[in-house]
């Protein structure tokens, strides 16, 4: 946060300069991280990944879990009868929504979306499946199996392998 403040000061100075030079320039998004957070909450997964590469501020926003939680929760809506707060706690404990998305939801979505055609929304079943797989991932990571904190654990490696389309002729 320290570097952000310093950068903000520098940016503000530059902006003031530019403002003086060019009165049409006004507000920039980096001035207001909360607004930035609001905007980024509405992005999809791929865009979030891209956004994380823009600058340090954006990166820090994009790596907070709440953005990814918004992403995961947005399409599913409220899972009836299921306590959202409770779910957040559990997922956070198991490794966070960002990891849930990258390790489980995204590959599940990709592979299943390919099969059933272009569905805009996610289904509850996909989320359940992803959560089950995520719990296995968590279990293995807790016990030192798998490759460490970055890649998926060994049981989930099958989700991350390149899928070739093979034509089997009979």
């Amino acid at each position, binding site marked *: 946060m320290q570097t952000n403040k310093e950068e903000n000061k520098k940016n503000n100075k530059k902006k003031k300069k530019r403002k003086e030079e060019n009165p049409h320039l006004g507000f920039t998004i980096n001035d207001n991280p909360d607004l930035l957070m609001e905007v980024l909450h509405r992005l999809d997964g791929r865009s979030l990944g891209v956004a994380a590469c823009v600058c340090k501020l954006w990166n820090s926003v994009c790596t907070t879990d709440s953005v990814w939680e918004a992403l995961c929760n947005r*399409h599913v*809506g409220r*899972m*009836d*009868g*299921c*306590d959202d707060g*409770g*779910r957040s*706690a*559990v997922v956070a*404990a*198991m490794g966070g929504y960002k990891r849930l998305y*990258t390790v489980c939801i995204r*590959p*599940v979505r990709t*592979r*299943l979306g390919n*099969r059933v055609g272009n*569905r*805009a*929304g*996610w*289904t*509850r*079943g*996909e989320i*359940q*499946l992803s*959560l*089950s*797989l*995520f*719990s*296995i991932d*968590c*279990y293995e990571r*807790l*016990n030192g199996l*798998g*490759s460490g904190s*970055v*890649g*998926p*654990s*060994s*049981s989930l*490696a*099958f*989700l*991350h*392998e*390149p*899928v*070739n389309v*093979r034509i*089997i*002729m*009979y």
Partner: protein
Amino acid sequence: MKREHPDSGGSGSGGDFSAPAAANGKSKCMEEPPDAGVDELLAALGYKVRSSEMADVAQKLEQLEMAMGGIGGGGGGGLGFCGGDEGVVSHLAMDTVHYNPSDLSTWLESMLSELNAPPLPPPSASSTASNHPPPPPTEILLDDPLAPAESSTVATVDFSHNRHGHQIYTSCPSDYELKAIPGRIVYGSDDSGPDKKRVKPSKPSSATTVDPPAATSSSSTARPVVLVDSQETGIRLVHTLMACAEAVQQENLKAADALVKQISLLAASQGGPMRKVATYFGDALARRIYRRIYPSEDLSLDWAFSDALQMHFYETCPYLKFAHFTANQAILEAFAGHSMVHVIDFGMKQGMQWPALMQALALRPGGPPSFRLTGIGPPQPDNSDALQQVGWKLAQLAETIHVEFEYRGFVASSLADLEPYMLDVRPSEVEAIAVNSVFELHRLLARPGAIDKVMNTVKALKPKIFTVVEQEANHNSPVFVERFNESLHYYSTMFDSIEGCGGVAANGGGGGGGSLSPGSNNQDQVMTEVYLGQQIYNVVACEGADRVERHETLMQWRDRLGSAGYAPVHLGSNAFKQASMLLALFAGGDGYRVEENDGCLMLGWHTRPLITTSAWQIGRTRTSDDEPPISGLTRPESDSP
């Protein structure tokens, strides 16, 4: 390979040719006095060829092939034969009188002299007809290009890598029949593409032409025509395997020995899953043959090793995950509304099933129950307490997700040693009990009375649900040959499916995070195959109390459980959907099928079911529809996007 050629040449002789003209041909057979100096290998198969004449016989066979001409097309030909050359073949089929095909050299001479009379079509690749040593009188030759007539048990051995498509094989346990082999065997030729399969009609009309796609149907009297390519060595391989099993059953160890050696040769010529399956079965047969000579070796594996193998199996293929997810769904539904739950796992291994259940319990509305787990496992040879370690890992996960967790490990060398009081269950008003058995019950069939004892023990525990996952096959027949053929079919399908999902990963390793080195996925696949290979050895080579892989089909388990006082619980549509989605994630996902069979879920590869999950309770039948929907996780309505 030198042996191969005369052998193939020998069986390349014609089959049962009908006598002239009559509606039912008859063939005449003249007996000849047995000769000395006859080649042993062929004699074991019913042919009499003098060793001195081998080269001569081979040469004549080649001439015969050339003369019979363009039947089936070039060196890697397909399955049908040309309509065009129908004339020659039908001539041979109908008009010629053949005597004693088992005496190859005289028979060949007669054939060649016959063929020299009609005009010879341009020579091209070879053709053969199969041969049955005692020719049944009503045979009509060369009708059906494909498989022999018996009922099919050995199924879809996958020749996809040869790109010639499926062949449905049939078991012929009654004799040593081997397919006729043409002279030029092209090993491992993949290049004969689909065009070779097609019939090349130069004379379009023919009375006896059979289309190649009619492969799956065979008239009961058809003789197969097999054309040159590596596919037919596959056919030979299957037949040799079955012949060897037959020999073993009849205690004809000399023949069995000869055939086993052939198997390894033939297996080397194949590629892909067929080769691996054949190698394992050949090995298993060899072990069975030689154990009569040598004292029985200890085929049982160190438990830690077999656990590790099962982990590879878990990671590579969806079977265990399917089992776990479907069983968990049933258990979750049974636990609805209870605040204290207890799961008893008959085969704890690494405990991979339970994280998902704990997560689902943690997320259920109303919060998680207090969760007790009793894990049962075999004694470890090195006295390490694997059960406790697994329990510790699960406890860590439970703590992470805030589920109250209690664990107890229980060592038992056989499930039949368990008594209800040992498991310390609380009364059923207080806690809901689930008993889970994944691939454990069939082992109990090795000892008489064990399975009944376990059934009674489970009943005494009064579980809310008893989930059973078993292989879907009958590998427990008292007749060895039946067992052999069944397991050949089953494991061929299994190996095919592994090829389907494991093979993809061989390219370049993991996509994200660099988690796996390029070679390791292949290693996973290999270890999975070793795991299955251990089962194959057990089914084929062991007997009595050692043979623990006594798989039985769902029907058999239904009978057993039904008569023990259990009623089936139907697995809901949610389990079905989860299972389908899980399978769709795997690279070979198109090949896997989930089927629902009267409340039980079966996972299979293409048309063949391989494992089955079923759920049981004591007393009357109920379905999951009777339960009020309690959590978003189990509602059977369609998912809304």
